[in-house]
Every structure is written in structure tokens, then in C-alpha cells.
């Protein structure tokens, strides 16, 4: 048997989706851990935020990898969805998708695009102002203007206190993220070829826990900052 090699196979494509997915899930855990500090202790949150915002390894190595993963995972997901749609020109008159697969697994494009829309809001809220202050205005001090204390916690609180619309938007977005993860977590393992009679059921349970606990964590933080300050 001679070997036929192709540039990028269907399996290669799904492995790329899974690997960027793994990285983004790790990022979610890291993001949540730091955000939780904002509920526990404002000073600690400020210190860690300042470290993340100014550490060269984080800013110039991890951040570019993150941006690449985010862009790639979205672009690739949309491209694959388009390609998969092209594989069936004449659609079924009746198609009962719910008979054999979960809503979450069939609608990754919907939950994914919802998360993309959320990211636009989230970047507008936090990331763009941060880039503006640090790299355009050149203020790397992390201090609140004209004072000697850190600005990060105050900025976070300002975004959620008395902002019910933003809180609702965040809650909806995290429900969609939860849907995405309910399929995505265990699907990533299957894509890289991990399927084991003993460990796969554990991975599925772990995936459900991750997909529910992580978004709930973010939601709790948003609601906490909305509620804790007098309206």
C-alpha cells in the first residue's frame, strides 16, 4: 500500500479546533480565578491585575497566543460550518435532529457566534480602554489618575454597579458559553483521539461541571458587583 498524503485533512481540521479550544478553556479558568479575587479582596485583585497587565511574558507572549487562538477558533469554526453546510445541497424536508444529538452539539455555531458578539461588548468595555491607557497614552503605572491607588478594581465595579443592562447581557452570554462548553469540552478530547471506556465518562462529567461552574462563576462576579454597591 502506498501512502496518499494531503495538506490538511478533515481530521487535522478538527484537531486544530480542539487544540485552540483546550487553550481557550485554560484561559477561561485563569480569567475566572483572577476575577474571583475581585470579590474576595480588592487589593489582591489590583495587584494581580497589574501583574497581568504589565508582565512582559503575559503581555508579549501569552496575550498574542491568546489573540491568535481566539481569532483562529472563531474564523476556523465559521469556515468549517460553511464547509459542512456545502456537503448537502438539497436539504431534508423533515429532519429530526433532536432524535439523536443534543441541541448544544448541533448548534455550536449559534452559541459560538453569541460568544463572539459578547466578546465585542467585552472588548469595548475592558480590553480597548486598557490597550488605550497602556499602549497609546503610555501610562503603565496602573494608578487611578491623580491618585496613588490602583484603578483596576474601581474600573471593574464602575462597569457593573447600576448597570442592569450590562449585567443581563453578561448573564445571557455566559448561558451561551455554557451551552458551547457542554459540547465543546468533551468533544475536544474525542477530536484528539481520546476515548476510553473508563476515563471518557469521567471526562464527560468533568466537562459538564466545567461548562456549568465556570460560567456561573463569572455570572456571580457580575451580579456581586451589581448588588454590592448602593443603587
Amino acid at each position, binding site marked *: 500500500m502506498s501512502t*496518499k498524503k494531503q495538506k490538511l485533512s478533515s481530521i487535522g481540521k478538527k484537531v486544530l479546533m480542539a487544540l485552540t479550544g483546550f487553550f481557550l478553556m485554560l484561559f477561561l479558568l485563569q480569567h475566572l480565578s483572577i476575577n474571583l479575587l475581585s470579590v474576595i479582596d480588592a487589593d489582591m485583585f489590583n495587584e494581580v491585575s497589574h501583574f497581568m497587565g504589565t508582565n512582559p511574558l503575559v503581555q508579549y507572549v501569552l496575550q498574542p497566543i491568546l489573540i491568535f487562538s481566539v481569532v483562529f477558533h472563531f474564523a476556523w469554526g465559521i469556515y468549517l460550518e460553511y464547509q459542512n453546510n456545502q456537503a448537502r445541497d438539497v436539504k431534508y424536508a*423533515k429532519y429530526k435532529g433532536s432524535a439523536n444529538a443534543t441541541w448544544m452539539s448541533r448548534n455550536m455555531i449559534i452559541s459560538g457566534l453569541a460568544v463572539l458578539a459578547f466578546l465585542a461588548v467585552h472588548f469595548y468595555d475592558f480590553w480597548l480602554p486598557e490597550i488605550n491607557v497602556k499602549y497609546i497614552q503610555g501610562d503603565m503605572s496602573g494608578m487611578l489618575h491623580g491618585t496613588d491607588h490602583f484603578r483596576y478594581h474601581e474600573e471593574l465595579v464602575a462597569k457593573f454597579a447600576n448597570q442592569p443592562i450590562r449585567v443581563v447581557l453578561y448573564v445571557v452570554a455566559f448561558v451561551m458559553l455554557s451551552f458551547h462548553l457542554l459540547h465543546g469540552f468533551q468533544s475536544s478530547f474525542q477530536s484528539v*483521539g481520546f476515548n476510553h471506556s473508563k476515563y471518557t465518562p469521567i471526562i464527560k462529567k468533568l466537562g459538564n461541571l466545567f461548562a456549568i461552574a465556570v460560567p456561573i462563576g463569572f455570572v456571580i462576579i457580575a451580579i456581586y458587583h451589581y448588588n454590592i454597591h448602593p443603587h
Partner: protein
Amino acid sequence: MNLNLKVWRQDSPQEKGKMVDYQLGGISEHMSFLEMMDVLNQQLIDNGERPVAFDHDCREGICGSCSMFINGEAHGPVKGTTTCQLHMRSFNDGDTIFIEPFRANAFPVLKDLVIDRSAFDRIQHSGGYISVNTSGNTQDANATPIPKENADLAMDAATCIGCGACVATCKNSSAMLFVGAKISQYALLPQGKVEAKERAQNMVAQMDSEGFGNCTNTGACEVECPKGISLTNIARMNREFLDGSVNS
């Protein structure tokens, strides 16, 4: 029982097809689904119309010929069965039943419910075999020790009848369950190890060139497969393929 059938009619691969309504009476719940189709065809012939073309052969769930998409599900609503093993007792008097061909660009419709599944044959030809010299010196089968567990798993994979329900039901028209089963069947046995790497590369390359979609792990194929082929076969294919890709 009386039925309202909505059947896909298409004269040739080039023509555009459409769903056509038929009223059918006098159907017994003991009939098989294909016998119901035979009654419909007799009615059409009596009326001077062209009967509905559909694939069938063994009518006992082994050959993989029958291929109808019934009420939105490959091989109909009963799990673990082919269309020929489906009986009218699974339906009720007065039901509307949608009957369509398995749809995927890689499976073009030839006529009505008959599709061209030769894409599967070409995938098989590209590596779904072992190269053995059969010149009369055939070795005794039991001379090669094989763990019982692997023999069982290989047998499970080998029960795939190549009907194409996995492709038909997949929202992406992916053929990975079929190819996964065919690769696993050999990957699990010592005789298959010799060409394992080439096999995975070649069969996946052929699958991709046939225009099937990409797998997104929804698991629909596994549920609709009349032979209960498991998703573990797709994971095994992924491993075999990746092993061949990084380790050639």
C-alpha cells in the same frame, strides 16, 4: 391503517426532485415498511404511474441496501434497525410519513429514493483491506494469537454494513463513523497492523476527496447506526491517522 405519504420523486440525477403526496389505505400493522412501499407501488402501477424506485436486497438487515430517511430519521424511528426491519406497527392510523433518500452531495440521488453510494466503495478500495498472498499457503487462522477483547472490538467494527445512515443523519454529512469502523476493524488485529499507517492516511484522504463534511462529534451517527457502531471507532481513527501523520 390509512396513511398520508410524502415521498421524494426524482426522475434522474440531473432533474430536480420534489416531495409528492400519496394516500394509501389497507395497510396492516404487521407489514414491513418495504412491504408498505410495495403496496404503494402496486397502487401506482394500477393507476398507470411510475412506481417509486428504492434500494432493497436481503430484507433482513444485513446487506445495507435499503436507505430511506423516514420522518426525519435514517432508517426510521426505531433504533438499531434498517428500513427493511422496520414494521408498520411503529406508526399509527392516519399518520403522515415523510420518505426521503439519504441526502449528501457525496451520495447523489439516481432515482427517487435510490442513491449512489459508490463513494464508500472507493474509500474501501483505497485501504480497507489487508494485502495477503492467498496462493494456497494460507496460514491457520488460530496460529496468530489475538486478545479476545480486541477480536470482539474488531468484530463490532466489522458489523458495519455500509448503509450510509451515519452520513445521512449527520448534520455535516460526515462519513467518519463508516471510515472509523473500517479502519478500526483492521487496526485492532495483528494482520492489520502491517499497513495501519498507510490505511488511515489513504482512507481519510479518499473520504475527504469525496466531498463528505467534517465531523463535529454530535454523536448522531452512533445513535442512528443500525449496527450500533460506536464513536470510539472515530477516536481510534483519529489516533491512527495522527500517528501516521507525525510518525511516518
